[in-house]
């Protein structure tokens, strides 16, 4: 049973560029959440997608956007990259149960903005 997968593993961009990160959830999961983990810090919630809609959003600017596809996979897009966007971006998937959804994480995409 494949777990959560993310691509690419590493990415280097320059300021002002745009980036797209991809995530495939664990088999049987229908909800995808994205987190940003800056160096030396705990992950911070960006947003969550369920039924192809953004359901919850953390304290991130509109430069961060996403999408969920009918097969439950998801993309995270970041426009007008800033140096401060350099971080490990983690995708987590879960099955929405209406109770405490346990989230399972992928290995992450390391984004470096120069």
């Amino acid at each position: 049973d494949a777990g959560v997968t993310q691509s690419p593993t590493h990415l280097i961009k320059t300021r002002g560029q745009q980036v797209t990160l991809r995530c495939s959830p664990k088999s049987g999961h229908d909800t995808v959440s994205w987190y940003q983990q800056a160096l030396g810090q705990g992950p911070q919630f960006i947003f969550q997608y369920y039924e192809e809609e953004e359901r919850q959003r953390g304290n991130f600017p509109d430069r961060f956007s996403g999408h969920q596809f009918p097969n439950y996979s998801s993309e995270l897009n970041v426009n007008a990259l800033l140096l401060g966007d350099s971080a490990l971006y983690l995708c987590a998937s879960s099955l929405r149960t209406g109770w405490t959804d346990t989230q399972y994480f992928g290995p992450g995409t390391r984004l470096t903005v120069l």
Partner: protein
Amino acid sequence: AQSVTQLDSHVSVSEGTPVLLRCNYSSSYSPSLFWYVQHPNKGLQLLLKYTSAATLVKGINGFEAEFKKSETSFHLTKPSAHMSDAAEYFCVVYGGATNKLIFGTGTLLAVQP
């Protein structure tokens, strides 16, 4: 609002000795709590979770945690540390209706031979 506080940023133990990683939580209702582990350059792995069933929760790799409401604590323990336990550990509270996880700042565990 829910939050967690990890009381130690770094913990160092010798191989074969007990591990104690401390976490206090704040929640306006009965919380759901987790411990995740992150090995260098890797994603997060779920160690264990508490969801108001038994207060002593057993996880993978010999770890366990005890939910103590009177102390608002959820400390992670292991009787005997192994070199492979060296990693960063995050105490996490579930954000309820927001469906998000709220992470502590992490505890870096070093295991000395």
